[in-house]
Structure formats: C-alpha cells, structure tokens
C-alpha cells in the first residue's frame, strides 16, 4: 500500500498491477477502477484516480515537494 501523492488516499499497488483479464491480442489487462500509475524520473508513482494523475502530470514538483 502507498498514498496517492495528490490527494493522500490509500492506494493498493498490488491491485493496480494485478492482471484481471486478457485481451484478444494476448496482452494482460488491468482493472481500471483499481487506480493508475505514472513513470516519472525513472520511478513509478501510484494514484487512486486518473484525475489525480492528471494533476500530478501538470505539476509534479508541487506534489513531490509536498511529500518531503
């Protein structure tokens, strides 16, 4: 578990990454409701919603400095 850097909500990293299906082309599929993530400066950050991630994308420094 980790915290969404934008709103502070609890985020279940394992659930975000868990495979919940398979596409017709054979790719592993994930549940969109479990949250999402972003690869930033060589590191993954996890978010409860895509809206939070959009805020992070626009101003990453604001949220990273907030994290300390």
């Amino acid at each position, binding site marked *: 578990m980790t915290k969404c850097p934008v709103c502070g909500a609890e985020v279940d990293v394992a659930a975000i990454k868990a495979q919940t299906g398979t596409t017709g082309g054979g*790719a592993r599929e994930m549940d*969109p409701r479990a949250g999402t993530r972003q*690869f930033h400066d060589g590191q993954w950050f996890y978010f409860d919603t895509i809206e939070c991630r959009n805020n992070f994308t626009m101003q990453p420094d604001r949220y990273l400095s907030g994290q300390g």
Partner: protein
Amino acid sequence: MNFGYSPEQEALRSEVQTFIRDNVTDELVEEMDIHSGTDRPRGRGPLGQALYRQIGERGWLGIAYPSEYGGQGGSRIDQYIVEEEFLRAGIQISMIGSGAPAILAAGTEEQKRYYIPRLIRGEVSFCLGFTEPHAGADLANLRCSAVRDGDEFVINGQKMYTTSAHVSTHIYLMARTDRTASKHKGISIFIFPMDTPGLTVRPLWTIQNNPSAPKFTTYGAARTNEVFFDDVRIPASALLGEENDGWRVGSMGLNLDRVGAGRYLISVRRDEDIINFLKSDEALGARLSESEVVRDKVAELWTEAQVCRLMTMRSMSIVERGGAFSYEGSAEKVWAPEHGVRISESIMQMLGPHGSLLRGSPHSVQDGLYAHNVMGSFQSGINHGSVQIMRDQVARRGLGMPSSRGNKAAGVK
C-alpha cells in the same frame, strides 16, 4: 492532368460494389465492427477471415504493396477504390496505421517479409504507442525508455491513448534509447507482440462509451487504452530502422499514414450519410430536403467535402510518383477534421432536437448516428496529430517559415 478514373478503374469499382452486394452481410459487418466492445482483433473472427480469403483470391488485398511481400504491385488508386467501397459498407480492409509504410521504408528484409504479408491478410495488427501522459503534441518529450542489454532491450514506462491496444497483436512503439542525446535524437521505434511479459493494458473509456456508437459512426471507438511496461524484454531484432533514428522513421510513417481512403472517407462519409438521409423515404429527411436553407447548406458542405477528396487525390498522386511528401498530408489533416466539425454542427441544426439524441433513445435519428458523429468529429481534430500541430507543420515545411519559439519543441504529431 486527369481528375477522373480510367474505364478499368470504373470497372473495378463496379466489380467491388457487386461483390459487396452479394457477400457482405449484417453479421459480417457486426463481427468486424471496430466500435463494438469486442476484444477480437479486427478481421480475426470466422466471417472476417472468410472475407479476407475471398477478396485475397480476387487480388484486392494489399494492391499497392510490392508482390514480394504479399501485395499485388499495383496502383494506389486501385487500392483506394477497393478500400473506399469496403469502408462505405462499414468494413475496413485497409491496414490503416503508420506501421506498414514505416516497415517498407526502414525495415530489414526479414521484417518486411514477416510483417507486410501478415498485415495485408489481417493476421497481424499494430496499435500506435507514441503518446504519453506528458508527451502529446510535444511528443519528443517522451520518457518511456528502452535500455540495451546484450541482444535485448528492456522497456520501462507507459503510453496513453493507445487506441486498439486491446484488439491488436503487436505494438508499434516509440521509446527513448539515449537519455543523453537531444530530445529528438535519442528516440527509436520497436515492434513486438502484445503478449510479451511485463506489458499490461488498462482501458480508458471515451465519450462514445455509453451508449456505444452505432455502426458507421466516424471515430466511434468506445475505448482507448493506457499501456504499461515493467521490465519488458524484447529482442534487438524488434528495432525498426537504426537505433536513435526513431524520430525520423516515426514521423515519416505518420505522414504516409495520412494518404488513402481510410482517412479521407472519415470526413466525407458524414456528407454522404446526410445526403442519403435527406433523399430517403424517411418523413423527416423528405421534409427537410424541401427547405431552401437545408439545400443551400448541404450543397455548401458537399463542396467543402470535395476539397477533402481533391487533397487526398493529390497526396496519392505525389506518393505514387515517389515525390517528396511532407506538408501536404498535414494540410489535409487540418481541412478534413475541421470540415468534419462544421458539417456535424450543421447537421445538428438541420435535424433539430431529434438530432441530438444518442443511440437507443426513442426518436433518435438513424439510431443517433449524427449525434455520435458530433462527438467523433471533435476527437478527429486531436488524434493522429492535432490540427494546431498540423498547421505548424504547414507553416514550417510548406511555407518555409521559421519555428516559433513556443513550437520548437512541438513535434511530428
């Protein structure tokens, strides 16, 4: 200069029309419908595969592709005619996408022999993995990284708006291979299967999701995707073109992908649909077609649509003759989507309140086709290179103007 078709081309068109009348059923269109929620790669169902066999036997698949790679070595205009007729019937047989032209231009002999015939037969399909959360119009900002490790590359990062990722067999990916080089220099293109371990797909639902768009909607896809890469290992043979030359290869592919029936018909289809509706027996259509205002508007929009057609013909003729094709496709990609917005709005005005009802609503017109087209028309001004970025390309490449400071970073898309 000849703006028409030859007698042989007219004969080909009527042969294709006859074939479609005799063979294309509602079930087939349903099976191959890209808007339906199906997870099956397009053309891979039993009816689709039978269709590919039938049209392959007639020599109508990959007409303009070289015969050594499974094509017919024929003319682009012939291919265009076949694709146009099938698109009108709701079936996309063209392998729309940047992959095929990029492979032909930059691929190894092995890549051409493997991919081109399979793309033509619909056995393989690519999704376009370019855009990222922080790299859209400014694509050269992309951060998805591919690091060489012996005979392999290891990919980490993510892609956004990867349309068709859930129905494609392969991804055509742009990634950063040199972090130290300048933005446009350290980029490479890779093609590899979607079932490679470490690759995951997450759906993003579009404004066409609920209710789903009716058949024949332009840009009616209910779903696009995000794609994540966690230590995805791919062989170095997945590299397309030279390492770190991906910006050039990718831009060229995108540009060439703007040539042909797939893109053109998206804009003109709406004109054809409303004209057919106005001329049909439907009471609303018949009543509207008597209005002078409606007739005036429809004639004006039809005239605009012919500009799309002429631009497409010009692009095809440049590419067919092997000429330099740079800003012409960008100009087409400005005119066609904006025409699409204008016509969709005008149709809403003509149809009145019923025109804004979505699929499945009582009183919707043609099952909500025109209402769904309005939403699609706005998408087509953004995807595959937004109209603003296309204008920038016309200004720089076509009119020889310098890059504006703000647009220096803005890239191919």
